[in-house]
């Protein structure tokens, strides 16, 4: 059976198993649990005390608490990843056996935070060698050991970027002469022309 929120693939077995665990707590508590899980997905601090309080009525053991948080994380992030709307998610979860009230609560929380979740996922997508800081300085060379009167402007660039493999910051300092800098700027402006052409 193919599910849209699993990316048009079969639903993993563990998700099916844990949905029955979720059905054990009341729908109100499940909605509050969803709110906590969404906070965790958005990298805000999750309040584990609240989570254990919410699940204590249904007498969840620590394994059950971890399982329910994991399955909610999976459902919400996978649905955001595949851009599933609330109604389809609701019908698919009901097909998997989650009771109607629980599904309604979950989908309401999902729709509220849908945009924020997608934004967060976009930000954490793979980026290599991110440029962090650019500092520049324009110097004017008066003279040198080779030529008495040089009178040329020169640009010094300091680029701080992220090493693509290790993730640590690297700094590189580049000195660009006036003509080469003009070539660089022309290339950049052609790029932006294309950028705007494709986007707008």
């Amino acid at each position, binding site marked *: 059976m193919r599910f849209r929120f699993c990316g048009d693939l079969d639903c993993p077995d563990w998700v099916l198993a844990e949905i029955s665990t979720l059905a054990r707590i009341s729908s109100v508590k499940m909605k509050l649990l969803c709110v906590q899980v969404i906070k965790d997905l958005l990298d805000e601090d999750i309040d584990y005390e609240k989570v254990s309080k919410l699940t204590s009525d249904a007498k969840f053991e620590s394994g059950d608490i971890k399982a329910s948080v994991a399955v909610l994380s999976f459902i919400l992030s996978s649905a955001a990843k595949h851009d599933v709307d609330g109604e389809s998610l609701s019908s698919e979860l009901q097909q998997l056996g989650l009771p109607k009230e629980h599904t309604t609560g979950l989908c309401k929380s999902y729709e509220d935070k849908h945009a924020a979740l997608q934004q967060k996922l976009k930000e954490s*997508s*793979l980026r*290599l060698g991110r440029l962090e800081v650019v500092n520049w300085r324009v110097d004017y060379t008066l003279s040198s050991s080779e030529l008495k009167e040089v009178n040329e402007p020169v640009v010094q660039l300091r680029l701080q970027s992220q090493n*693509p*493999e290790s993730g640590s910051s690297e700094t590189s300092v580049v000195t660009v002469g006036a003509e080469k800098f003009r070539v660089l700027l022309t290339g950049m402006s052609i790029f932006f022309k294309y950028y705007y052409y*494709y986007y707008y």
Partner: protein
Amino acid sequence: MLLVLSDEHKEHLGFLPKVDPAVVGEFGRIAVEFLKKGSNPKIYEGAARKLNVPSETVQHGVEGLMYLLTESSKLMISEIDFQDSVLVLGFSEELNKLLLQLYLENRKEVRQILSELAPSLPHYRNLEWRFDVQLGSRALRQHVKPAICLKLHLESGGTQTARVLQTDPATLLHLIQELECALAEVKSNHCRRILRNIK
């Protein structure tokens, strides 16, 4: 298969008959503890003070026991072979029985510890991927070139490394096909026969 003990080793173990068998039992227990958790020099000093011998002698005695245990567990020698190997040391009957018991009780655990010392290759931790399309470049404008960027996170004995790879869709499909062949190989008759025999 007999264990061959070096002269230095025999010298270190020569300390054992000079003390009570109960103390030897205690040394054996300390030796197993050290194999599990690493050695603690303070224990040598405490024991040396109680027995009124230099701490170096105690250390050699315990280390000799540890080496005897690891070598016998590594080769998984039988009871008779162990007894014959220890006979060479010229210990009393009681001491021999004690050493044999120490060996038999702890060999499974020692073997488990030794198995964790084998070298391990970097293994998979996480894979991030990204599907890009190159629309143009300084050299050529308006083309369409799809590319897939992969960041493979690996872990080897506690240290984490990452490798960045880039491929085009055709190579990626070929890679997937090769990996699926590898998985299918496990189900072939040849592999099944070998696995059945090992189990």
